[in-house]
């Protein structure tokens, strides 16, 4: 839509549907500009929802949808939003989207809603969402803002899922509810009868929120020793 009406002066930077710049918007937040490990946003929910993979996965999807669409809506509205109340406007848009997602889920998949309504509500307060609105969507065009939102949601989700996989395996001896190792006949490896794994004990610390903080720390360490450029960023 906007592309057809751009004046020649601004066309020096060629507008592409999905060029190098657009790809960078999507990929950068997943690694070198990750919202959790580099921008250090959204750590709170990374501690709370990562004891198991399933809630982490739903949280990742819902945050990605909300960052994507709130970026899109705010970017469309950006010229009309009064500066003085822009944060309130942003918050209204976020809360609106999250409520709609929750209501639709409640009507069409009540059991999943019942399990995860807390998390979906929590994504209103996720600082990544508002951070991207302030930092990107307020000053950029809708399509790019949308990509930026999706990229940041995905970067956040990736960290969430990595931590959840580690915590569920080491803390509960399971993955996505599939029982791998533990002290009863329900598990794939029964530590009560197995001679080889009789020594194994699940790590109770991994169930507690503090373990996620250690894991985020380790992830940051790994990422920065791999990419020296990041060391002085924050």
């Amino acid at each position, binding site marked *: 839509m906007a592309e057809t009406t751009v004046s020649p002066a601004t066309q020096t930077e060629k507008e592409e549907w999905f060029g190098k710049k657009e790809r960078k918007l999507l990929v950068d937040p997943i690694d070198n500009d990750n919202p959790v490990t580099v921008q250090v946003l959204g750590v709170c929910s990374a501690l709370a929802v990562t004891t198991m993979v399933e809630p982490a996965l739903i949280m990742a999807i819902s945050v990605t949808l909300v960052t994507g669409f709130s970026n899109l809506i705010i970017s469309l509205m950006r010229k009309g939003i*009064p500066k003085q109340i822009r944060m309130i406007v942003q918050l209204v848009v976020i809360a609106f989207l999250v409520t709609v997602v929750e209501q639709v889920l409640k009507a069409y998949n009540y059991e999943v809603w019942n399990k995860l309504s807390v998390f979906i509500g929590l994504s209103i307060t996720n600082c990544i969402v508002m951070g991207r609105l302030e930092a990107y969507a307020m000053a950029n065009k809708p399509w790019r803002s949308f990509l930026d939102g999706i990229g940041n949601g995905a970067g956040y989700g990736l960290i969430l899922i990595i931590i959840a996989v580690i915590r569920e395996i080491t803390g509960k001896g399971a993955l996505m509810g599939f029982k791998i190792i533990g002290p009863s006949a329900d598990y794939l490896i029964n530590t009560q009868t197995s001679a080889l794994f009789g020594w194994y004990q699940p790590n109770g610390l991994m169930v507690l929120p503090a373990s996620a903080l250690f894991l985020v720390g380790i992830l940051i360490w790994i990422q920065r020793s791999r990419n020296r450029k990041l060391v002085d960023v924050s």
Partner: protein
Amino acid sequence: MSNRYIIIYTLIMTLVVSVVLAFVVKGLEPMHVANEEVFKKKEILGAIKEQLGADLTKMGDKEVLELFKNKVEQVVLDANGKPVEGEQAEKISMAAEEKKPEADRHYPLYIFKGDKGSLYLLSLRGMGLWDKIWATVALQDDFNTVAGISFGHVAETPGLGAEIKDNPNFPKQFQGKTIYKDGQFVSVGVIKGGAKDKNHEVDAISGATITSSGVHSMMQAGLTPYLPYFETLKKK
């Protein structure tokens, strides 16, 4: 930008958002209500899912309502354990009863008429870590042995407190426990660090101390209102 612009902008924005949300919520409400009824009945039947003779998770909404209608008898008890005439147990909301003074509360009792005798389903409500928790306790017709239990909660932490509902091994522990010890009501305790009395105690969930002790207190307080009624049934 002028103040007038800001005020008009805010008014229009809030108006648009609230109208759209109102339509979304009202439009989906019938589905929410229908879902809730099925969910509530599934939760109650969940306490006796092994005695149902059918897999509850595979049952459709219609089958659940049908089963409930045909096999479940409903009784409402007042605070003294006397049956109340002309009330339906499924119409009672434990959340609403909780707000009344104790003497005015009514308690729903569901009696499942199975092939192997009746099972008595009691509704309990208590407090977890973040919000309310509740349970349906199924007692055998000796009014002493727990046949099964199912839990529900508003907002316990998944992986920790929410395990009361999500982990089938927690409710399984209650099966076969008895609520009377030498004729004295002791209920079933939820004990941190391992249950010792194998007839009246179960293990708590590690990492979820407050939810576990919430279940413990609920088991103590929630069963008592039903006991006088069971005493009268025993005498018959």
